[in-house]
Each structure stands twice: as structure tokens, then as C-alpha cells.
């Protein structure tokens, strides 16, 4: 699935927080959205996912919008856990799809094992640790086998081990054909995972390029400063 943003503007309380922005994303594997705090990364992700209304402009997918939404999943920076068990959290998106119980049970068991929570299937999800919650949120998103997965800084505040586990799962997802669009502050992670980079600053796209080209020779001043660890305003 490819997506096209045409002159998109998002305003909040009369202030422009994103755009005007024109962007085309094809079926690339791993797109990393980089930029300083408040640059508009999360807003861009939400616009692409269709949960943020645009003030003007248009967002169009290569498939009908309903089909596009059904094929998407989103993982938030702070994982949102349903007040249910781990099993019920994993099963919920599948129940929404109307899958039969046997299929749901099989997928839940498989994903619980994949994220190391097989022994905690009946444990209340909100009482898991931060890393476990983030892994569960990721599994809950991937269990639907989405075409496109949006991740909003999924590894913020996680320890190295949890980050490595999450990155492994993400690589597997890309290999399985899922398109991933992710925001991060972690340049090391961006270097490890990205196929393509979009650099956002002050609500505008300052640069977009294949990852290797971006990290070797960023062309915009803001991106260069960001890569050098300078303060970008």
C-alpha cells in the first residue's frame, strides 16, 4: 500500500502544528521519521493512520480508505493496556475481525510465546512491567497481520534487552511484508533499522532520503545538526 499526503495542514487552537506537507510513501520496508521534540512526528504518524483530522489537504491511500484502515495497526509511545488479561489483550483485535475461536487461540498462543509471556497469559496486562507492556502492545498490533504498522517511539524508556527483542520482532515483521513507519529519537536504532528516513522539523519535512544516503550525507542544515547531536530549534 502506498500513501500520498497532498498539502496537508494540521492546526490546533489556531496554530499550525504540521504542514503544509506533501509526501508520498511507497511500499518501502522500514521508514523512520526523525526530528526534534515537538517537530510534528507523532502528528504525522496519526495523520497517516487517520486518527488525526487534517485542517486542509488530503490523505489518499492506494486502496479504499476503509481497506487501508483495516490493514493498519498503531503502537503508542506509552502502551495502552486494556484492563484485561494478557490473553484477552492479544485476542481483542482478532475478535474485532470476527475470527473463529480456534484461530484466535492458536495466534494468541504463538504470539505470547514469541514475546515471552506464555506463563503470564492469565495475568492482568496493566500490571506487567513497562517493557513487557510494550512488547504486548507490539504483539497485539502484529497479531492482526497488518500491511502497515505505525510505531510512535516504541522503545522510549526501555532497557537494552527489551529494545533488542522489539527490534528483532520488527525485523521479522518487515521480512513478512509489513510496511513499518516509526518515529524515534534514538539515532542508533534508526541506523540499525531504517531503509528510508524522513526528517521533520517545525511541522515540515526538511529532508527525505534512503537511510544510507541520509546518514552519510544529510543535505539539510537541520538534519545535519540533528545527526551531529547539535540542538535543533
Amino acid at each position, binding site marked *: 500500500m502506498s500513501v500520498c499526503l497532498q498539502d496537508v495542514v494540521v492546526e490546533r487552537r489556531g496554530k499550525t502544528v504540521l504542514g503544509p506537507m506533501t509526501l508520498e510513501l511507497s511500499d518501502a520496508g522500514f521508514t523512520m521519521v526523525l526530528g526534534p521534540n515537538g517537530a510534528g512526528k507523532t502528528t504525522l504518524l496519526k495523520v497517516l*493512520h487517520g*486518527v488525526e483530522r487534517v485542517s486542509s489537504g488530503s490523505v489518499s491511500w492506494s486502496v479504499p480508505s476503509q481497506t487501508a*484502515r*483495516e490493514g*493498519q*495497526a*498503531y503502537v*503508542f509511545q506509552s502502551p*495502552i493496556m*486494556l*484492563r*484485561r488479561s494478557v490473553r484477552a489483550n492479544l485476542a*481483542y*483485535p482478532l475478535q*474485532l475481525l470476527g475470527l473463529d475461536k480456534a484461530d484466535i487461540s492458536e495466534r494468541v498462543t504463538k504470539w505470547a510465546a514469541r514475546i515471552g509471556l506464555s506463563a503470564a497469559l492469565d495475568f*492482568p496486562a*496493566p*500490571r506487567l512491567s513497562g517493557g513487557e507492556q510494550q512488547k504486548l502492545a507490539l504483539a497485539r498490533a502484529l497479531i492482526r497481520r497488518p500491511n502497515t504498522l505505525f510505531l510512535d517511539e516504541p522503545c522510549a524508556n526501555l532497557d537494552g534487552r527489551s529494545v533488542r527483542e522489539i527490534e528483532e520482532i520488527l525485523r521479522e515483521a518487515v521480512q513478512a511484508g509489513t510496511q513499518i513507519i516509526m518515529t524515534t529519537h534514538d539515532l542508533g536504532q534508526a541506523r540499525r533499522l531504517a531503509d528510508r528516513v524522513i526528517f521533520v522539523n517545525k511541522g515540515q519535512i526538511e529532508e527525505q532520503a534512503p537511510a544510507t544516503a541520509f546518514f552519510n550525507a544529510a543535505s539539510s542544515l537541520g538534519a545535519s545538526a540533528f545527526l551531529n547531536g547539535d540542538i535543533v530549534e
Partner: protein
Amino acid sequence: MSEIWAGIAEAFRLIWSLDEDLIDITIRSLKVSLTALFIACTLALPFGTWLAIRRFRYRRFAIAALNALMGLPPVVVGLIVYLLLSRSGPFGVMGLLFTPTAMIMAQVIIITPLIASITHQAMRELWSEYHDLLISFNTTKQQRISALIWDGRRTLMTAALAGFGRAIGEVGAIMIVGGNIDQVTRVLTTAIALETGKGDFALALGLGFILIALSLVVNLTIHTLSRTEREGRW
């Protein structure tokens, strides 16, 4: 003080002897209040949840009106239901005045705003927590309401218990629309009012203790069944 002891003794005697009238009145009280509670919950839980997630033009006014309706004076509700059901009223032909059905109607009107308002408060908090997730799952309104009601069921149980407490202890409205007719519409609260009026304080107190015990038993049963303590942190 002696009257309180006499009341306690009378309550035990009535229970111990399985007094026929007492059993009849207690069962009727439970039937009327639980039926009213069931109907009110059917209306108030989805409505309160809907109000929490839906944005519309007069939403603030609707919430303010709902909160104001929580304080509806029961005697006024009783009077209005009486006028509606009386022979000259619009529903007079149905012959419902001075029946348990009329009492249930009055109680439903009294407790529905209370349950809906508590539901709205609880669901508003849960909705702010779940909002982004349920939207990202592309859920329908029906699915969102179902998820909120299911995951907020323990809080909703509290709302229902508050409604039950108000219904079982209500006297003004059901006295007007029920008429406190022996073996037809007499319930614990109207019986207490009657016995107090007759000066039989011991029996009135006995009935009062039974009313309190009944309320406690229902609350504890629901509390235990819903495993509030064990799973309360979900």
C-alpha cells in the same frame, strides 16, 4: 434505648419465626427494586457510556441536566407518575395505579439519572485512557461502548449498587403510586412508615433492621461475585 432493643428482638423474632407477612413484604421489596434496577441499568449504562464518548452540540447541557436529575425529589416523581397513571391521566386506561408496576416505574425514573451520571463519570475516565487505542483498532461506536462497559464493569457495579440503595430505601414516590396496600403494594419502607404512624416502633425498627441487613447482603453478594477486591486493580 429500650425501644431499640425491642426492635432488635422483634426483628430476630420475625426472622426466626419466618413471619409470613415479613417474607411477603421482603420479597415484594426485592422484586420491585431489583426489577427497577434491571430496567434502569439497561437504560442508564449504555446511555452514560454513550454520553462519555459522543461529542454533540448540547452535550454539556445534557450532562448538567442529567446531574440535576439525580436530585429529583421522589415525592414529585411519585406525583407525576400518579397523575400519568390516574384514571383521568393519559395512561389511566392501563389500570396501573396502585400496582407494583407503578412502583417500578417511579423507581426507574428516580434511579436512572443516578446510575447514568455515575456511569458517565466512570466511563469518561476510561474513555480518555482507551480513546486512541480503540480508534486505532477502527472500532465501531457499538464496539467502543461494549469494550468500555466490559472493562469498566466493576465501576458500573458501584453505580448499580448506588441505584439499588436508592431504590430499596425509597418511600415517598412508591407510597403515592403504590398506595401501601397490604399484600399488594406494601414494601419494607412503606410498612415502616405505616408502623411508625401507628406508634408500633418495635415493629418499625425490626423492619428497619431487616431493610439494612437486606441492603448489606445484596451489596456483599455482588461485591463477592464481581471479585472487586481480587481483580480491582485491572
